């Protein structure tokens, strides 16, 4: 029916956002594979501390892409509902309270036009979907909203917030006799130095080795 009503730029943007969300999930999976490889690494593959750092770096990359996928998905859901003009007006009224700060335009460079997956956003999106009186629209949005309100998602975001903005919890296996903040700090400095030595060693090995595959350089 309303295929002609949909803004062409909007449809292109939406398709791009869907593809981007999928790619981010694939990147998260790639990082998960790297974590598994580090878990399988043996003593001769490198010092324990370097393996642990490598594994943690990949685990955090996985977290980054999972969170990116969640945010992308909520924006895909919002943009999907925006295809219908009455729902777009409802979304703008709900999220921006009628102010001009957001218009949900395709390819918008405005920060406020892109939403975060959080409890407030999910509740508002659910409300707009219910206003549509369309079971198809509710069915589309509900799994995304339920996930955004779930403990799984919110614990992940909370952990990321703590790691990035406050105090980064220690890696499992790194806790032990180093009690207190000073001990943790010293241990981290030692980890950093050890990792640096490991990377330098790998770089030197690469430079010396004529059998190192070129695609790894």
């Amino acid at each position: 029916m309303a295929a002609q009503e949909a803004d062409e730029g909007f449809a292109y943007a939406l398709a791009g956002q869907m593809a981007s969300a999928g790619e981010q999930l694939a990147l998260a999976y790639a990082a998960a594979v790297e974590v598994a490889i580090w878990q399988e690494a043996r003593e001769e593959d490198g010092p324990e501390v370097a393996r642990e750092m490598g594994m943690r770096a990949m685990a955090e990359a996985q977290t980054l892409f999972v969170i990116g996928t969640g945010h992308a998905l909520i924006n895909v859901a919002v943009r999907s509902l925006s295809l219908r003009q009455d729902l777009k007006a409802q979304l703008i009224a709900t999220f921006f309270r009628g102010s001009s700060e957001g218009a949900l335009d395709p390819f918008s460079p405005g920060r406020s036009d892109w939403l975060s997956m959080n409890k407030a956003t999910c509740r508002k999106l659910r409300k707009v979907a219910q206003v549509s009186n369309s079971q198809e629209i509710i069915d589309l949005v509900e799994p995304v909203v339920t996930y955004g309100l779930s403990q799984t998602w919110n614990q992940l975001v909370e952990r990321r917030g703590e790691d990035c903005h406050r105090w980064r919890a220690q890696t499992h296996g790194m806790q032990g006799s180093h009690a207190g903040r000073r001990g943790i700090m010293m241990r981290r400095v030692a980890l950093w130095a050890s990792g640096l030595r490991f990377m330098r060693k790998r770089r030197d090995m690469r430079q010396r080795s004529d059998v190192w595959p070129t695609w790894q350089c």
Partner: protein
Amino acid sequence: MLELASVMESFYTAWPAASNVLGGPRYQVSQETQDE
């Protein structure tokens, strides 16, 4: 991550029916793609 993958799958499964209601683009999976 697997839970999120499942959410994405649900979303894209519901998309064709919702797209008709929303007036969005209609995607058709070709027979060739299905065979792959």
